């Protein structure tokens, strides 16, 4: 069947945006996925060693050629920048390998044939079968290590999955914390937002417009500005403490900034409009005839609320609540600014691994898991709220 002229025109109109979104969004996401599982360092920096280890069966020690290759290639890597990436990568696999690799690279001049003996003489770790198993394992193109680490698992030198050591097992608690904070923020937003939306929907149009304006102005103000405002307000010498002391509620300034309390206050402030706006439009569109029918059938007010009003406004609650939860899970700026070290969420660590420790594999693995969680939430949202769309909450 020939493509109609109409559809050809349509395709031409859609194509530019399609190309831009694929090239600068979909492809970067795929790059991130690859970064989470890619393992290029050993293969690229130690190609000859990789070749020499290919036929080694993993028992005892590898052939002399592997020892010779690793000495030559580490020394060569030291002249470029590659040694930094390689040693950082392997040190993440096993702490201490960084110093071993740097030491070996520097010692090239002192090492002579037979290389196996002189390497073991330099550092006994070169005589460990486990070290060579670890190296051989990392000659593969892909590694599950970063994703495993994100789930507090690790690989033993022999390559089997094990629990990560206690000091490294920080990520499951991190995901749990992210969920706990997001859950309470969602609950607070719904519990506060529901009566507010209801009250606004019962006011006269004039009063409701003013009320909605007071919801929309914060909604349009940037998250950073609102977080900054809380950052200033909650300081030890800040306005909130001044007010509390002025009213003689407290004698000493209360520490609020860099606490979980500050995170909740600022996040609820940022996200509350996302509940109020959809609820308001649902409540506004509700036909009061059902409530009147319930009343005429003799239902007392609380029954009218529980059995008629609440079920009819549930889609709004679900849409707003899921929206808030989904946004909360990805929050970064607000906890980073007003929270303490124990209030940071997954996003913070993604940024931390990207910028501070330059461990892109770990950052990408956490990002992939966060993305997966969001995907599941969107799926749930679509099941629970027919026609759920993130844009539906835009003003």
């Amino acid at each position: 069947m020939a493509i109609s002229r109409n559809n050809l025109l349509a395709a031409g109109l859609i194509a530019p945006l399609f190309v831009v979104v694929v090239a600068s969004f979909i492809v970067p996401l795929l790059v991130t996925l690859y970064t989470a599982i890619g393992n290029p360092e050993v293969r690229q920096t130690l190609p000859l060693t990789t070749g020499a280890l290919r036929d080694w069966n993993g028992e005892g020690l590898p052939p002399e050629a592997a020892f010779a290759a690793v000495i030559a290639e580490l020394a060569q890597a030291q002249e470029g920048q590659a040694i930094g990436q390689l040693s950082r990568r392997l040190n993440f696999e096993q702490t201490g390998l960084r110093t071993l690799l740097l030491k070996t690279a520097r010692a090239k001049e002192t090492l002579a044939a037979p290389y196996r003996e002189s390497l073991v003489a330099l550092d006994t770790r070169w005589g460990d079968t486990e070290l060579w198993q670890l190296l051989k394992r990392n000659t593969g193109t892909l590694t599950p290590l970063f994703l495993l680490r994100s789930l507090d698992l690790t690989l033993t030198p022999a390559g089997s999955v094990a629990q990560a050591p206690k000091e490294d097992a920080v990520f499951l608690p991190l995901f749990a914390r992210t969920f706990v904070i997001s859950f309470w923020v969602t609950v607070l937003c719904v519990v506060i937002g529901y009566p507010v939306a209801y009250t606004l929907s019962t006011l006269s149009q004039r009063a409701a417009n003013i009320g909605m304006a007071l919801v929309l102005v914060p909604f349009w103000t940037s998250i950073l500005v609102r977080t900054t405002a809380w950052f200033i307000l909650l300081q030890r010498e800040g306005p909130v403490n001044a007010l509390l002391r002025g009213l003689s509620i407290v004698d000493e300034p209360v520490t609020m900034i860099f606490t979980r309390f500050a995170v909740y206050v600022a996040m609820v402030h940022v996200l509350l409009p996302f509940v109020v706006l959809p609820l308001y439009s649902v409540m506004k569109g509700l036909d009061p005839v059902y409530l009147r029918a319930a009343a005429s059938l003799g239902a007392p007010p609380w029954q009218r609320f529980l059995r008629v009003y609440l079920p009819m406004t549930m889609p709004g609650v679900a849409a707003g609540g899921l929206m808030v939860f989904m946004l909360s899970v990805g929050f970064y700026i607000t906890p980073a600014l007003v929270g303490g070290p124990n209030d940071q969420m997954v996003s913070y660590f993604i940024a931390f691994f990207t910028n501070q420790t330059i461990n892109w594999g770990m950052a990408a693995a956490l990002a992939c898991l966060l993305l997966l969680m969001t995907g599941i939430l969107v799926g749930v949202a679509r099941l629970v709220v027919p026609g759920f769309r993130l844009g539906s909450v835009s003003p």
Partner: protein
Amino acid sequence: MNPQGRGLALFLRTFTAIVLVFLMAPIVVVFPLSFSSGELLTLPTPGYSLRWYDDFFSSSKWLLATRNSFVVGIATAILATTLGTLAALGIFLGRFRGKAFIVALMSTPMVVPVVVTAIAMYFAFSFVGLNNTLTGLVVAHTVLSVPYVLITVLATLQTFDRNLLKAAATLGAPPHVAFRRVLLPLIAPGVATGALFAFATSFDELVVAIFVAGPQQFTLPRQMYAGLREFLSPTIASAAVLLIVCSLALLAANEYFRARGKARTAAADPAEPN
């Protein structure tokens, strides 16, 4: 209403008033702080002055950030509005399956946590040299804001009566004339709203800027963030006030276009109010 119901209504109104105060207070409080004559961000202020605005407008860093914000914001608005409107028209005009999929695909940047988008772009841009460039920032912001354009323009097109295009054709107008004189004027308010969303998204965006922008590409939010982590000076409060004023202007413009859009569709199609 019985006394019990009246008591409940009073309680609800009081509660709502308190929540509205909670929503507005932080935004309002920044204003007096920014006009303080003192060095510290405390209330009551020792006196009022414009010194922190003076500081803002005489600082090369803040001026550069302001310039960058407007350059990136306007470029993003133009790019996102053009691409988004064309795609919306394509989706509206085409007769094929999978329209919902295309809209969903283009809207994914709204769903994906912004940190994930930010590092994804940072990784990918590092291969093509787009990090630490304004172009990179514009591309990133365009991707983030294009869903808003697409959705608002599509929503406006829903109210557009296809018979008007047929009428124009019957009256002898070639397609491009019908597009320019019939379709475009009717969807213009939706396009304008989309452009506002795109500008506002870019103007407020921080997370992508943290990764993709270098000091020379710092935008206002990025500069504010840097300032907050260094030293809490009242200049930050004055920058916040300037951002709030910009947001209010955008909100007002949005309401204006929305009212105009309603008036237009009502005038064009009085029989069908939806």
